[in-house]
Each structure stands twice: as structure tokens, then as C-alpha cells.
């Protein structure tokens, strides 16, 4: 009756699952943007310090859901950021754009880029040289606040101006 009449030889294809993983393969490249270390922040009482920029002026602006429009409050913060940057020409900045978790991954990456770009464009209109600014988007990958309601989401829909010493890489 049923002779086994057809044989599929799959030996070659079956050798597939044997590769090993080297956990150090890619080194320890950081996932965050470059910024000055904590030791380089200076004192918040020194108006020319990154600490003053981060805390007295404010290093971030927030956005409405799905928007990249700068509010009046954001513009005021960014005007002061621009003044600081123009007074402290040794520093450059990376503007990081972020989104809350209420969105798909790819769209949030693009939305974060739009927010970072809105900040960059405004800083440039205020007189900051474009070559001192760079943007990067993290989408929804790096939330600051971890709850799943608007109180957290509004903190996460942000663009953060990260001060760095030296040139933009």
C-alpha cells in the first residue's frame, strides 16, 4: 500500500540555527545623545553654566497631542535658550524630539523629528548658528514619565535641548 515514495532531503537547510551570539560584539555604544557630564554642568547660579540653561531657563519645551507647534510659553523658553547659546559660543546643542506612547513606532519617530526640527528652526531664527545645532528623534523610545495617562504623556511629548561641549559630531 503506501510505500514512502517521496523523500525530501532537507539536511543542508537544517544547519541553520547554529550561530552563537557574542554579547560584546558591538561594544557599548551609548543609546543616548551626547551631552556634557554631570561634572561639567557648573552652578545654576552662574548664568553661563549648562546647569543654568537646564534649570533656570529650562532645557525642554512640551507639545500638544500629535502637534509640533510651539506654544507662546515654549517660544519664550526658546528665546532664552537662544540668548544663552549665543552668549556661550563654545557649546553646541543636540535637540532631542520625543513622543508619548500613544502612537505607532514609526510615526512617533517622524513626529519626534518634526518637534526637534521646530525647536531647531526657532533657535536659528533667534540667531543661533545652524551648524551648532543638530536634531535627533527618539520617538516613544525614551519616556521620562512612565504612567499611562495624560499627566505622564504631556511630559513625554517634548523636545529637549541637550548642551554639549565642543563641536557637533
Amino acid at each position, binding site marked *: 500500500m503506501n*510505500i514512502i515514495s517521496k523523500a525530501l532531503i532537507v539536511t543542508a537547510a537544517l544547519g541553520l540555527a547554529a550561530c552563537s551570539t557574542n554579547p*560584546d560584539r558591538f561594544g557599548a555604544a551609548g543609546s543616548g545623545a551626547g551631552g556634557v557630564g554631570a561634572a561639567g554642568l557648573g552652578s545654576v547660579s552662574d548664568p553661563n553654566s549648562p546647569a543654568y540653561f537646564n534649570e533656570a531657563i529650562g532645557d525642554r519645551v512640551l507639545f500638544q497631542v500629535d502637534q509640533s507647534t510651539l506654544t507662546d510659553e515654549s517660544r519664550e523658553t526658546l528665546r532664552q535658550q537662544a540668548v544663552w547659546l549665543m552668549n556661550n559660543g563654545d557649546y553646541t546643542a543636540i535637540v532631542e524630539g520625543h513622543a508619548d506612547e500613544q502612537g*505607532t513606532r514609526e510615526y512617533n519617530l517622524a513626529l519626534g523629528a518634526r518637534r526637534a526640527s521646530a525647536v531647531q528652526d526657532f533657535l536659528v531664527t533667534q540667531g543661533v548658528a545652524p551648524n551648532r545645532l543638530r536634531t535627533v528623534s527618539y520617538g516613544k523610545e525614551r519616556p521620562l514619565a512612565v504612567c499611562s495617562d495624560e499627566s505622564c504623556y504631556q511630559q513625554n511629548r517634548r523636545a529637549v535641548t541637550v548642551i554639549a561641549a565642543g563641536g557637533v559630531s
Partner: protein
Amino acid sequence: MTHILRILLAVMLAAAAPMVSAQERGPLRIEITEGVIEPLPFAIPAFEAETPNAAQYAQDITRVVAADLTGTGLFREIAPSSFVSNVTSFAAPVAYPDWRAINAQALVTGAVSVAGDGRLIVKFRLFDVFAGQPLGEGLQFVGEPASWRRMAHKVADQVYARITGEGGYFDSRVVFVAESGPKDARVKRLAIMDYDGANMQSLTDGGSIVLAPRISRDGQRILYTSYETGFPAIYEMTVSNLQRTRLPVPTENMTFAPRYSPDGSTVIYSLTEGGNTDIYALDTRSGGIRRLTNAPSIETAPSFSPDSSQIVFESDRSGTQQLYVMPAAGGEATRISFGQGRYGTPVWSPRGDLIAFTKQNAGRFHIGVMRTDGSEERLLTASFLDEGPTWSPNGRVIMFARETAGAGGAPALFSVDISGRNLRRVPTDGSASDPAWSPLLP
């Protein structure tokens, strides 16, 4: 009579296909389908160990074949404890009345041996019990013992294909992002596993954020986005040796959302310039780059049709995220999504008939499918956050990531069939997101 078995399954699968006949539906008709069907009962006695050293393999392979079949939701295994008789020898004639007595409609028998050269030999037969005859010829697979799971999946694919008349999906792999750590400092590693969660292997070390891997049709190459320079860029990895190279696209811009063309020769992706994201195509042979969209809105998440003639993508050019289809070379795009809410991450089915997507509406996320012209939209799932569908090789099942809410929220992989039935968690070692299902392995 063989017919009856096949027709029964065809009916079951038809429940999974868009149901238009009952009443003519406009393209805005939306429903969450919850078909309930009776799975087909089958018996799978433990495969015979033809050599003493094959006993464990025989037992394990039998369980994997059974798990593959029951995991589809189309089949129900009859407990061996209710068998009237057992199959003592693979070569012995089948006692059909004994299997009819327990209402087994299909019977799978098998035998496993270890050959003199150390290779594993797996044989199986499938019987239509009520017709009293075999369904197809016996078949045997030969492979390395370490690949016993693949051989079991190949047996199950054959059984599935013979009974449903469609290709199977068990001998396939899934590349995904394995996640660990707290929500505000998540560690993400590229990883790959069998479709059922077995044989998981990490491909990157977690030192950089990695996103949305895609696997080539031959299962040998993976495209993904990595922040390893601190800036998102697309990389391609060869699975066999973990060698990876940066995609030859402009490095001063952020690039992401890559996907292969069906023949693997083209990579479509998104590039952001001055805050504006558009879609581009890289010819991997010539290195030539072509811009496919040119709009001030966000254009991203492109996916080729299986015949390579069209690309579906998402855009917010209308004000919110919606789905559009354009010719593969770019040009005028047609909007296909018109329901309530926002639509993203479209993926063309390998069968060509449907597009799967993520939908956001009224604070909930859904995985859904629609025909390629946007008609007959059906939502298959609903949760706090469902995202990123990927198709099974036969276009019958969708895998996606579901993330739970709150500070302790974490993603896991789920699968669901295109009728919305058989929602199942895909087992992974730890949290997981961004699945991409390979075609059937060669």
C-alpha cells in the same frame, strides 16, 4: 470522501475570509469579527521509534506536530487516553473503525529513526478516517538531530496543507525586539526565534536601541534601525554570521522603517530631512536612490505588494495618519483608509489580497485588515496598545505586539487569524515587540 475533509476546512477558512455576500457593504463598514467554529478532531498517536536512540525524538516530534496543528485553532487533538486502539507499527494497516469510533476525522502516524550516519529520519502518513484512505502519500524528512523541531514543523506544514489546500506556516522564523528593564530605560536587543517561540537567539547586545527589524524572503538577512552611533540609521545583518553593515544611504539624515522588496533587491525606507519624513528606495545592486514621495507631511512605514508593483504606506497629509497606495516607482498616491481614527504600519499580505494595519481610535489600538482598495475593513483585536502587524507565510495569521498600560507596562507578542479568532500569546523569553515573520524556510 477525501473531499469532505477538505471541504470542511475550506468552510472554516472561508469564515476567515471577508464576508460580503450576506449584504453588500460599503468601504466604511467596520466590524470586529468573532467567528466561532468547531475545530476538526484529529488523532496523532506517538510516533514510532524505529531505532532505540530515536525514542525521545519520536516523542518530542509528535508533541510539536500536535501543538502546531492545534495552535491554528482549526484542529482539535483527541486525547490518546480515549484511543480504542493504538498504532503499534508505522507499516501496519490502519484500523479505520477504531478511529471512527472516537470521531477522529484525520489520523497522523509517524516513525522516527536515527540513521547510521547520525542523521534523523522522520516519516509520516496522513489518513482521512471517514473516507478510509490515506490523504496524500507518505513522506520522509532527513536532517541533523539538532533540527528535529524543524522536521516536526515540516510534517505539520504538510498535514495542514493537505487538509486545508493552502500552504502551512510552521517551518518559519520570527525576528523581533527582545525588551528588558524599566519603561524609562528599556534595553532592546534584536532577536530571532522559531514561529512558536522555540530556539530564541539574541542578535545584538542591547547596548543601543534597535527598532522594527524586517526579514528577507530567504530568511537570511535582517534590516533594522539602530541608534548605535547615537543617531538612528538602518543596518542590514546576515543571520548566519551576525555580520552587519550600514545601509548605503545618506548618514547625515535620520533613516528608519526599512523593508525589502519581495525579491530583496530594493529596500524602501523613510528618511527625515529638516524635520520632514519621506519615503525613498535604494537599489541594493546599483546603490541608486530614488525618492518616492515628496510632501511636507510625514510619509513612512512603506510595504511592497507581493507582485512588487505597488507600495502601501502611511501619511498624515490629510491631517491625520492614513493609508495610501502608490506605484512602486512613486507617483500619485490613492488614499485607502476612511474609517474613524488613525491608521498606521500597513503591511501587504503575502497573498496579495489584504492589507494589515494598526488603528488608533477613541483611545484604543486595534490590529485590522482591509482589502487593498480599502474596502471591507475589519478589526481583529482591541487593547490599550496593539501595534505592528506581520503576516504568516500563508497570509492567514497575523502576529503583532501588545503592550500593557502603566508604569509596569511591557509588550508581548500575540497572534490572531484573519477572522479575529484564535488570539494567542506567542511565548518569548521576556518582553518582546516589533515582530517580523519570515516566509516558509526552504
